[in-house]
């Protein structure tokens, strides 16, 4: 592996560019380089691992039991990538991805590194942009002191830091229980775990229980929940939740089963209700997406080799649908086989033969997933906040009530028109934190399905770059004619 610290040191074009150095990206880049492709892995963070294996090579939390064996597995994947011939650009942002204007079948990638932008080309790309936590819009979620559970986990992995004072963990899903246990093991004072798993969810998940019994999740999952229940104050059937405080978090207000309000004073509130694919880049590139009813989120439409609707773009890992770290690495590996075949390094027979055991392993990994997806699907009141005063767009500070009102009275049927009228999704986060909620509110108000409502149409830059960086990039005669007139 060759690390590159300056955007000027990158080659002008690569056979394969992989975006994101999490499980899928590390595997894809290593496999691509191993098959002889000139491969570049670009990643926003300073060290490899993505979020799940964040700081696996640098974490100060060396006691293996604190972060758990699943975390340390990442070290092997990083080591394999390190041994490969791939180039590696850390702290590098991909801000655009598009078919090359010269129509030569290349993908043109806009990068920014150390305050300098650059366009490079790739014959094939694999987007391994991973997942983000599903927005959890409750009253008060913008107060300092409220964070995502994932954020607390990142602080623990990178800095060996834990939330100070009284900590409340709220929401649902495996990551929530894992985090509660990790933080407790690291010495945090967790005063309560507020579980928002919908009471009816078990019933809808039950038909999938057979698969779950044979899945790798079972033992792990049961252990996590049991551990959290045994060691911590575990409050089930939470149906309402709000963060309270003036200029910072002072406590949490909640209700169980529609009962009376209860309160807990706390200094930190960590929220989590599952993860969803990060689709900003594939969306801005113009790839087709579809709504996954089981996982209740949008994901790119892909073929068997994880190729998106646009030639030259594949998507692997949780960015293609949530499956967890192990499945992400397998999907990265399979996607890289597809690339190698498309670039003539592998014939179809060899590709299929090598992919077969990976696919079998992937199927084993994903067994039982549906059960978890259905069990931990957030309750409606945590997807579309009932209290109209709740902020849904954190950047532009647009409330649930404003969105409902525009959907109802102004006849807004989709998030793009909503964005035009209310500015939701126009801030720097580009709808990452409000897109799903805005769509839920429109669907609820107008009695539409989420697939009908649609999603924001995104454009580059998917991450901000400066006007100066953009201005310094190459121009073309045609571009000048289009502008100077």
């Amino acid at each position, binding site marked *: 592996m060759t690390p590159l610290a300056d955007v000027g040191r990158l080659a002008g074009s690569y056979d394969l560019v992989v975006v994101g150095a999490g499980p899928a990206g590390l595997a894809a880049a290593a496999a691509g380089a191993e098959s002889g492709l000139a491969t570049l892995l670009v990643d926003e963070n300073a060290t490899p691992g993505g979020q799940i294996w964040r700081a696996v090579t640098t974490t*100060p939390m060396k006691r293996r039991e604190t972060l758990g064996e699943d975390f340390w597995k990442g070290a092997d994947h990083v080591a394999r990538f390190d041994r490969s011939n791939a180039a590696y650009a850390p702290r590098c942002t991909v801000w655009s991805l598009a078919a090359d204007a010269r129509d030569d079948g290349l993908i043109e990638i806009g990068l920014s590194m150390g305050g300098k932008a650059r366009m490079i080309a790739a014959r094939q790309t694999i987007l391994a942009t991973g997942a983000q936590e599903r927005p959890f819009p409750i009253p008060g979620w913008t107060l300092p002191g*409220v964070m995502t559970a994932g954020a607390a986990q990142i602080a623990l992995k990178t*800095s060996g830091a834990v939330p100070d004072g009284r900590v409340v963990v709220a929401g649902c899903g495996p990551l929530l229980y894992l985090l509660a246990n990790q933080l407790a093991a690291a010495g945090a004072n967790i005063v309560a775990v507020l579980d928002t798993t919908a009471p009816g969810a078990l019933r809808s998940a039950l038909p999938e229980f057979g698969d779950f019994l044979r899945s790798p999740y079972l033992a792990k999952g049961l252990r996590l929940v049991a551990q959290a229940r045994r060691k911590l104050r575990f409050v089930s059937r939470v149906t309402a939740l709000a963060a309270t405080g003036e200029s910072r978090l002072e406590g949490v207000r909640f209700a169980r089963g529609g009962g009376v309000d209860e309160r807990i004073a706390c200094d930190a509130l960590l929220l989590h209700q599952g993860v969803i694919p990060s689709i900003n880049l594939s969306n801005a590139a113009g790839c087709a997406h579809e709504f996954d009813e089981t996982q209740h989120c949008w994901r790119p439409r892909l073929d068997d080799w994880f190729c998106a609707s646009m030639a030259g773009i594949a998507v692997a890992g949780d960015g293609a649908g949530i499956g967890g770290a192990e499945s992400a690495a397998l999907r990265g590996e399979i996607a890289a086989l597809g690339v190698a075949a498309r670039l003539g390094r592998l014939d179809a027979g060899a590709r299929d033969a090598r992919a077969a055991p990976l696919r079998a392993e992937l199927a084993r990994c994903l067994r039982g997933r549906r059960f978890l997806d259905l069990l931990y699907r957030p309750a409606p009141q945590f997807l579309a906040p009932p209290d109209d005063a709740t902020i849904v767009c954190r950047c532009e500070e647009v409330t649930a009530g404003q969105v409902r009102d525009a959907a109802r009275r102004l006849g807004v049927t989709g998030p793009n028109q909503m964005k035009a009228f209310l500015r939701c999704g126009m801030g*720097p986060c580009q709808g990452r934190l409000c897109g799903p909620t805005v769509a839920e509110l429109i669907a609820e108000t107008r009695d539409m399905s989420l697939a009908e409502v649609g999603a924001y149409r995104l454009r580059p830059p998917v991450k901000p770059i400066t006007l100066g960086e953009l201005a310094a990039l190459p121009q073309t005669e045609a571009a000048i004619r289009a502008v100077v007139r």
Partner: protein
Amino acid sequence: MFRLTPEGAARPPLAFTFDGRAMTGRAGDTIAAALLANGVAACRTTPVSDAPRAPYCLMGACFDCLVVVDGVGNRQGCLTPLEDGMRIESQRGRRAVAELAS
């Protein structure tokens, strides 16, 4: 906001300032993590309503950890590694570009 575990505190220290106050971070910290570990409650106010905000997702998605780093505004604190001697300031509302404001 956050405190370091003994393992976290064992890393080499890095000196920086936040709004003029001297603070100590650790090698491997992002700016956002260092601010949290130094007890900083809010790192910015919003350009819309001036409400205080603090890092929320720590993974580059939410843009609530925006700070001014060595005079450059609206930097994502969670994606920027802390360096020794950094001058960090809270991002107050809209970013002012000095030459533009004159």
